[in-house]
């Protein structure tokens, strides 16, 4: 089915099993809490050898030679591989082809240049650490995107202009003209990347940790120079992704090459340091905002021009202004993006690429505009919600943006906020409140699933969708159970295997709505098949607890099947509703912080997120996703920053000791309100994405609260105490 028309039938609302939307426990929960869910490294593949990647110890230049002999002579070492097919960096999300390959030309410090394989992990690690290389280093290393000699590009398709922002600024009653900067971030998923490669003749099975298997399979095949049919990837459980596992990564290709060469299975795991250096970072950004408003605070002009970075030859550029296009009105608009080419770890998707940093800085600028105009920050947002997409003549699909702002303000007690900073003090702590809007584009992707209604009345859902902690196992089980009227424990959902029908994969928040729709469509088909047996219309068929009820008569499903199993395939594809309406998710963040008046340390005391994201499929897992996004926001606001050496650009804080993701004590008890909504344009299940919405703007609420508490206006993230100290008495 192509999503060309809004599906106003809202079929899930008619079902009787009562599973959809409920806060049900995760179906795989018992496996995860008992340590029996199988992650990539844990497959019992016989006779594995272990490989460890070797990093380039310099930022730019050429590898001249590698002293393989000395390492090969070490106890237990089996191979030293510097094949030209090794990946320079992972593939970008949905690339569907090999990324840049080659182990001789080095463009960043930490680039994988060889793999040492040994009988044991300990042997391989020491071999990798001992590998002596000769290289020719090029001193002209580019590190700072803002350097006067930085090489930058301005892709035409990433520049937008409407009206005259400069004139709007001149004529405005109130303006903001400020630059905000966000540093690089690391996804820091808890499971480091890992791949076990095993060949049988010319068939490769790769047990890995990836988010989008249908693309990953093509990327891996292309990297190795083989057909996709020769590759099977299995990722039953993925220990977190957040963008870092979207594309095939260096460990997979290295493991596959080594396994072929050695004729035995090879397991390659990245160290935590390698996850920082050789996977993906979120680009640093420089964001220049110009906001122009009339005397009532209504925007007349809005300019958001950003500078980001990436390696040479990478097409991905952090889409900073993605949501700036549609959150707020304003006649005169300019949204631009420039990319600097640097010798730093590859930039790619990290949770909510674009909005995570773009909405955040926009919401800081809006806070400044509110102050300049003397309008409450909440009121300013409400005043500037556009009726239609401000740049195209299209409506919004569904959008409870206004409600999110209002309901959030009420639930949070926003009216207690003191408009003048620095007014509330509790002992040594300065207390303040901040808020921000949340927005994230919504996308539907092609996805396919097969659903089997077995003769015994149980159901099997099969698709190569992944569950990276998002709850895919659970929501797909719920959808199938709801549509076919069977309880959760009668549905088995099989995911994470390219032998199964190709799904959208997990990324861009599209997983639940896309793969969920495919399961829904397959179930609709099965319902039709049952209707034919019962000679009724689907609308007249009620399926509940293994009973088919038609015209007040109940039929046992097993009897009805009569020993036969039914099967159907559902395929969803994006269609015209992707173009003829503006689809996005919205929300509002509210934060209360305490800033220490002596030291400038900030602690978040309360936080509330209100989200409007279409139908909520499982209230429990959706809420957890929102918590996760908001806590990413706390990290962004207060501590997370990739620090690069100013000479060679390497990430100096390349571990979890010095790259500070939030710990439990950094996080207060959070509140999340999920608004009841159906988006008929988004998908036949009326759901949109929610995995990333929680991070979009969250950090701004915290940083705006810091200003309200202390008067410290921090425009360079993160708001560490050194940036707050100068404002304190």
């Amino acid at each position, binding site marked *: 089915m192509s999503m060309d028309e809004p599906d106003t039938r809202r079929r899930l609302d008619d079902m009787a099993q009562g599973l959809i939307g409920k806060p049900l*426990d*995760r179906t*795989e*929960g*018992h*496996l*995860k*809490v*008992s*340590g*029996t*869910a*199988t*992650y990539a*490294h*844990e497959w*019992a593949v016989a006779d594995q050898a272990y490989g460890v990647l070797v990093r380039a110890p310099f930022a730019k230049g050429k590898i001249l030679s590698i002293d393989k002999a000395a390492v090969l002579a070490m106890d237990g070492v089996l191979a030293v591989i510097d094949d030209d097919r090794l990946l320079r960096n992972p593939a970008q999300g949905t690339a569907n082809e090999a990324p840049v390959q080659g182990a001789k030309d080095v463009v960043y410090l930490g680039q994988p240049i060889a793999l040492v394989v040994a009988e044991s*992990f*300990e*042997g391989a690690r*020491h071999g990798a650490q001992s590998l002596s290389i000769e290289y020719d280093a090029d001193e002209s290393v580019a590190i700072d995107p803002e350097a006067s000699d930085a090489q930058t590009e301005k892709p035409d398709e990433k520049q937008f202009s409407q009206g005259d922002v400069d004139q709007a600024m001149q004529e405005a009653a109130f303006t903001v003209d400020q630059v905000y900067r966000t540093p690089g971030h690391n*996804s*820091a*998923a*808890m*499971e*480091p990347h890992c791949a076990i490669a095993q060949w049988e003749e010319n068939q490769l099975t790769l047990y890995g940790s990836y988010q989008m298997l249908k693309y990953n399979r093509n990327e891996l095949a292309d990297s190795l120079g083989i057909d996709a049919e020769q590759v099977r990837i299995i990722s039953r*459980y*993925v*220990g*977190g*992704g*957040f963008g870092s596992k979207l594309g095939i990564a260096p460990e997979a290709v290295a493991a596959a090459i080594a396994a072929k060469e050695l004729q035995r299975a090879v397991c390659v*795991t990245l160290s*935590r340091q390698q996850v920082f250096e050789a996977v993906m970072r979120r680009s640093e950004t420089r964001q220049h905002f110009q906001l122009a408003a009339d005397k009532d605070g209504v925007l007349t002009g809005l300019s958001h021009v950003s500078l980001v970075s990436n390696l040479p030859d990478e097409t991905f550029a952090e889409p900073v202004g993605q949501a700036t296009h549609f959150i707020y009105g304003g006649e005169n608009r300019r949204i631009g993006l420039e990319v600097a080419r640097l010798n730093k770890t590859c930039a790619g998707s990290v949770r909510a690429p674009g909005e995570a940093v773009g909405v955040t800085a926009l919401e800081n600028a809006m806070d400044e505009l509110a102050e300049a105009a003397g309008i409450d920050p909440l009121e300013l947002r409400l005043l500037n919600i556009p009726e239609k997409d401000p740049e195209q003549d299209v409506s919004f699909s569904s959008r409870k943006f206004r409600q999110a702002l209002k309901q959030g303000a009420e639930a949070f007690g926003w009216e207690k906020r003191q408009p003048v900073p620095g007014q509330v003090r509790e002992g040594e702590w300065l207390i303040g409140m901040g808020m921000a809007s949340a927005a994230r584009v919504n996308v539907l992707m092609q996805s396919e699933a097969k659903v089997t209604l077995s003769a015994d009345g149980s159901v099997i859902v099969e698709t190569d969708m992944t569950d*990276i*902690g*998002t*709850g895919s196992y659970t929501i797909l089980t719920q959808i199938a159970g709801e549509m076919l009227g069977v309880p959760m424990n009668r549905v088995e959902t099989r995911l994470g295997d390219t032998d199964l029908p190709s799904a959208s994969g997990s990324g861009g928040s599209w997983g639940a709505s896309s793969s969920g729709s495919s399961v829904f469509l397959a179930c609709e088909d099965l319902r039709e098949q049952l209707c034919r047996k019962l000679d009724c219309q689907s609308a007249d068929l009620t399926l509940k607890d293994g009973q088919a009820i038609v015209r007040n008569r109940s039929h046992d499903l097993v009897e009805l099947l009569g020993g036969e199993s039914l099967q159907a395939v559902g395929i969803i594809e994006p269609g015209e509703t992707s173009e003829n309406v503006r689809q996005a998710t919205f929300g509002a963040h509210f934060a209360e912080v305490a800033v220490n008046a002596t030291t400038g340390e900030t602690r978040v005391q309360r936080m509330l997120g209100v989200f409007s994201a279409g139908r909520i499929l499982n209230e*429990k*897992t959706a*809420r*957890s*996703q929102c*918590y*996760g996004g*908001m*806590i*990413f926001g706390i990290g962004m606001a207060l501590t997370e920053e990739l620090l690069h050496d100013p000479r060679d650009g390497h990430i100096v804080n390349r*571990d*979890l*000791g010095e790259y500070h*993701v*939030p*710990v*439990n*004590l950094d*996080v207060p*008890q*959070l509140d999340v309100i999920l608004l009841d909504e159906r988006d008929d344009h988004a998908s036949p299940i009326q759901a949109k994405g929610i995995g990333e919405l929680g991070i979009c703007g969250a950090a701004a609420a915290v940083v705006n609260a810091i200003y309200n508490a202390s008067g410290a206006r921090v425009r360079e993230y993160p708001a560490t105490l050194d940036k707050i100290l100068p404002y304190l008495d």
Partner: protein
Amino acid sequence: MQTLNLQVNGETHELSVDVRTTLLDALRQHLHLNGTKKGCDHGQCGACTVLVNGKRINSCLTLAVMHDGDEITTIEGLGGSDTLSPMQKAFVKHDGFQCGYCTPGQICSATAMLDEIKEGWPSYVSVSLVGEPELTSDEIAERMSGNLCRCSAYPNIVDAIIEVGDKS
């Protein structure tokens, strides 16, 4: 290679390991107890938390050979998928995880942490160093701060632990 005996989850295992093998790698690669996870290998994430002689430690930062004769409890020893411990059940109920990778470490840590509170150990956020520590969300959050969760299930983890702590 060195040989040693480990008492893991009540069973004695004799194994022969490279002296460099950490307790974590011995559990995963030699005993195939994969519940204990490797998140950072440097004591910076807590995913590898196990109980050694009843105390929680990071199994990545200790050598297997240092534990000859020690009693080790891993997540598998706390409860299997159909014999969940109260803490494991509470994590499911409160959704104290998402991807599940840090989860065994969180649960081992939480289990041992409640014993530390019972023994009266103070924490950095305890208002007073003397007297019995209380089971507040701040106390739990501080004591669980050695277990990172990037999915950020922290609020749910705290809820799960409070439920178990209140009952015991």
